[in-house]
């Protein structure tokens, strides 16, 4: 494996990134992400020394390799990306608070740190036509897809106005209209569903695709293998995206995987495979666009590993003591939101003041969502019997 620092220096990213250290950030002071400590020396993507196997090749999408213009993203749209990422972070920071205030119960798995993955991916698809399915760490994906903070917060509060009418909670965000096919709480169980979603698209002769997100922990389920094999034999338009945030609960990825470059597992199925940095929204965007347009829309399933990091413990109750000292700080120094803010300023797309203004707006929006969720009603007791079967008069006998 290449030394990542050297790799970073070699492509010049270190120096450029280092300048951002001094940048003030509107994210400081909220408890979730303190001021970055060091330069962005840690490329979040370890680029394996190639060629690894004579017969295979793979694309890598390290951070800081492409800009918005290369991706055909308009200047204003860059601010939308930032807005989306800020919204996710602000929303989830308030979730922690709301959990402490016991407005939210159940499991609460936060996505903080991974926002570039959701935002970069969603910007690469045709929203409302292409489908997205993900695991239980689903708030960020839902918000990136345009689900409103209000319906999301209401769901967390268990209110009838929630995106799943208070029946799903944190782990089960659904939005049929946006083709958010759910957050799913059984590790690995949604991977076969993604093949079916893609199957339906192909069956109808549409060129819509399905993005299937899952964690590094889900890779070890048999469902992963079965889903990949089915996608391979039926040529299904699905992109399997492993969001490698380095841990499955307290289990570091290298403790439980015999082939640590997770994207390479796709080779077992003859998939095109790639590795992308999840700490740069543009890298994710390019990787997903490539996979969607070059493969999925042409009926070729593929595998993408996005290396990212979750800042919080596995769930709200996990203090994450299994992490090495300074590990989190090091990772935060690569924060995708900081990176994008810096990019925006460097490219004169907006000023720090403009960014602050967006952030304030977003915080306001989240505060309003909390108020609305608070004010909303819990479902009627009778609602326990709703949505079990298609017919409303299904006879209950016990």
């Amino acid at each position: 494996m290449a030394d990542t620092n050297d790799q970073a220096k070699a492509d010049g990213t270190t120096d450029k990134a280092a300048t951002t250290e001094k940048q003030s950030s509107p994210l400081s002071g909220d408890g979730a992400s303190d001021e970055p400590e060091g330069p962005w020396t840690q490329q979040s993507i370890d680029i394996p020394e190639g060629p690894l196997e004579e017969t295979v090749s793979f694309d890598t999408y390290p951070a800081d390799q492409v800009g918005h213009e290369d991706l055909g993203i308009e200047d204003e749209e860059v601010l939308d990306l930032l807005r989306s990422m800020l919204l996710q972070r602000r929303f989830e920071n308030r979730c922690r608070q709301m959990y402490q205030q016991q407005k939210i119960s159940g499991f609460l798995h936060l996505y903080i740190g991974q926002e570039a993955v959701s935002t970069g991916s969603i910007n690469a698809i045709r929203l409302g036509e292409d489908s997205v399915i993900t695991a239980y760490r689903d708030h960020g994906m839902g918000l990136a897809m345009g689900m409103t903070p209000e319906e999301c917060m209401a769901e967390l509060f268990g209110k009838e106005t929630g995106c799943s009418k208070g029946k799903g909670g944190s782990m089960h965000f659904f939005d049929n209209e946006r083709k958010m096919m759910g957050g799913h709480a059984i590790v690995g169980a949604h991977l076969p569903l993604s093949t079916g979603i893609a199957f339906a698209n192909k069956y109808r002769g549409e060129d819509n695709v399905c993005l299937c997100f899952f964690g590094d922990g889900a890779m070890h389920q048999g469902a992963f293998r079965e889903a990949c094999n089915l996608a391979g034999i039926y040529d299904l338009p699905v992109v399997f995206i492993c969001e490698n945030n380095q841990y499955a609960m307290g289990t570091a990825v290298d403790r439980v995987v015999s082939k640590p470059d997770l994207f390479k597992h796709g080779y077992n199925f003859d998939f095109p495979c790639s590795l992308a940095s999840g700490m740069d929204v543009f890298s994710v965007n390019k990787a997903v666009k490539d996979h969607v347009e070059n493969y999925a829309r042409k009926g070729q399933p593929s595998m993408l590993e996005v290396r990212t990091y979750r800042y919080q413990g596995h769930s709200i109750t996990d203090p994450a003591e299994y992490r090495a000292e300074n590990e989190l700080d090091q990772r935060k120094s690569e924060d995708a939101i900081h990176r994008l803010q810096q990019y925006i300023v460097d490219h004169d797309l907006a000023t720090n003041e403009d960014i602050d203004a967006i952030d304030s707006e977003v915080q306001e929006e989240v505060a309003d969502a909390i108020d609305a969720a608070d004010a909303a009603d819990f479902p009627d007791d009778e609602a326990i019997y709703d949505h079990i079967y298609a017919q409303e008069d299904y006879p209950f006998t016990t």
Partner: protein
Amino acid sequence: MIPKSAPGPSTPQSEFQIPHSNDMATLQFREALRAAMTEEMERDENIFLIGEEVAEYDGAYKVSKGMLDQFGSDRVIDSPISELGFAGLGIGAAMNGLRPIVEFMTFNFSFVAFDQVINNAPNMRYMSGGQFDVPIVFRGPNGAAGQLAATHSNSTEALYSNFPGLKVVAPSIPDDGKGLLKSAIRDDDPVVFLESELMYGMKDEVSEEADYTIPLGTARVAREGDDVTIVAHSKSYHVALQAADQLAEQGYEAEVIDPRTIKPLDIETIVQSVVKTNRLVVVDESNPFASVASEVTHQVQDRAFDYLDAPILRVTAPDTPAPYAPNLMDEYMPSAEETVDACRRVLYAE
């Protein structure tokens, strides 16, 4: 008045006679099921069939024979031995607008896909607050089929009936097989459709009426009688009919009720019969603990306790895995003799 404990809306009235018209053909059970799938697939192109060996091999039990030729490989799809995977594929496709029929080579293998069948299919509508339909049918042979030993003899009806969101159907005669399968395919909920390997060759009259369906949740009173009620589904139904014949020779008229669907269960029809006969025996080849027989027993005592003249008896498999040896297997399966004995006991005929 029949006491009712639950407020639930009433189930449709069951037919006391099989509505045979002139449009009848004599078909094997498997042919009746095939006719149902074929007619539905002709009607709605969103329906497809997937499973191990369903296409090129014509189906492990030949239920889908010829369907590949008729519908092509886009709609009649061989899958790898990957129950978890293809069950999940079906559910995802159902969430995205198709109407899959998933064949398990036998329901014993559905346990490999258990997570999909019980955790994904029935929960999706509920957890999404009603946003996603999962119109899928999981079908295939259920229960013991001769001497296949413990891993290949499971009766899964009670198990799957335990999960709200699933419907469970278990027909006993070819005509019901056709009418109920068509309803199952049209249903917007996931349906577990249980056949029996030993019934596939059974021949009987089957309706050829256009659009012939039997609503889920309607029991069939197969034989009328005043002395004792026997409730039995699937293979056990045939055991019950034999027992009824033997009882008739002894001067007792048994009423035989085939619930046809386990969930929803047409408890009204069963209760009406018990109100008439005051005695109930349930025949069910499942293991007895927490079985369909236990559920029927509970519900009847709940609703018609005052009408019972004897404790309800069950005739089931013993609480053991299914054996291999032929004599042990005979011991394992509910028999007409045991059923007759049980009926005589509730009749206090000894």
